[in-house]
């Protein structure tokens, strides 16, 4: 398995996919949660609209992105970018991994947003008020008070997201089928390819084991961190 020349790029794809998706969706989710933490007209409507992507079946979500958004001729992305001189780009085959990740980010941002929003709303208001009276600006307030409070929620979201994203299969299968070559294949998809298309069941099983061992090592460390930060403080939740 380790001599398989395709294993390494596939493993690297998996890492890029997970780390990239988690990072981008946490940042976007944090931004959206901060936006939704204020009162404005239509706030609950916007919150519902923002949550919708995570309610869509992953297969349907992948199809939406592949056929209506990224399509080279009929896609809405190309239509929207047309005035800026972007021609008919076949996004899915030119940037396969990025295309799959866009779909994943779209589906995972609402989850992160909800988690962080819950964190924001569990934050005691009097401390922020006191800091504001003491003359702390919005940026300082965020850095010194809000962010340390949200850290636990962000960590939890990142670990949960990563654990689920290791298993991403439907998005890859629907959008690119791992291609071109193995440019966008991740480990689950490659295992599927080896087992059910290549009939190399032994190798597929070995890769399954490697995936699990690697994730267990990473998530042990991450979960330790979370258990520690959540059991240390009772008001979390």
């Amino acid at each position, binding site marked *: 398995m380790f001599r398989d020349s395709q294993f390494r790029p596939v493993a690297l794809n998996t890492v890029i996919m997970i780390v990239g998706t988690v990072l981008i969706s946490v940042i976007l989710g944090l931004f959206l949660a901060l936006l939704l933490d204020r009162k404005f007209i239509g706030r609950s409507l916007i919150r519902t609209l923002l949550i919708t992507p995570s309610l869509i079946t992953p297969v349907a979500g992948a199809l939406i992105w592949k056929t209506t958004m990224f399509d080279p001729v009929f896609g809405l992305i190309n239509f929207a970018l047309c005035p800026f001189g972007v021609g008919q780009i076949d996004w899915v085959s030119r940037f396969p991994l990025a295309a799959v990740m866009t779909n994943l980010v779209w589906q995972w941002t609402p989850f992160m947003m909800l988690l962080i929003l819950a964190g924001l709303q569990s934050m005691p208001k009097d401390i922020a008020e006191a800091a504001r009276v003491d003359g702390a600006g919005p940026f300082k307030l965020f850095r010194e008070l809000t962010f340390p409070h949200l850290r636990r929620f962000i960590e939890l979201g990142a670990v949960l997201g990563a654990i689920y994203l290791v298993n991403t299969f439907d998005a890859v299968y629907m959008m690119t089928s791992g291609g071109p070559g193995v440019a966008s294949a991740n480990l689950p998809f490659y295992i599927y390819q080896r087992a059910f298309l290549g009939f190399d069941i032994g190798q597929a*099983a070995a890769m399954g084991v490697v995936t699990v061992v690697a994730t267990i090592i990473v998530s042990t460390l991450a979960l330790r961190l979370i258990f520690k930060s959540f059991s240390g403080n009772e008001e979390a939740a």
Partner: protein
Amino acid sequence: MSTATTNNKPKKAVPQTSDGVAIKRKSNWGPGTIWSVVAWVAGIVFFFPVLWMVLTGFKQEADAYSDPPKLFFTPTLDQYRGVLDSGIGTALLNSAFATIVSTLLVLLLGVPAAFALSLRPVKKTKDVLFFFISTKVLPVVAAIVPLYVIVGDIGEHRFEQARRRCSPVPSGHRRADLGAFSYVRGSWMLSVLPRTRTAAVIDP
């Protein structure tokens, strides 16, 4: 300053420019509005693909795939009729069956396990919980591999048949359901378990 504003409350109604009023008006139309607009735009951008899917569902085939994309069109229910006529019933029944039965099994297995672990914690309960969660990270396809071999070895069906049944193309056969299903059961138990346990510990 603050005493002055509280004393002159009736004076505020008069459109005379006092400091407090000017500041208040600025905060109404200043950065606050911009952030609200940003929130609206973000919400619509995130929702747009879903909206487009819904719109496309009501289009004729020619309108659905067109360049430039059509925002205005004469709506039709043809596509829905087509889907309902093509035998979506079996798929729906399969989904309902898998969902309901696996939820029941998860509860049946998860609740006693959670109770047992919270009432009489074994040594290193945390490690046990972690072991449960770790099966969640096993890729579904990797979990199907052994099931696939088992099905092949049973000899109840020929190998080819088993292979077809394990392929992820949804065409409604029982054996493929069973594979996916036992996996779902296992992994969902794990995500339910720690939560139930925590709840049980907090609320004895």
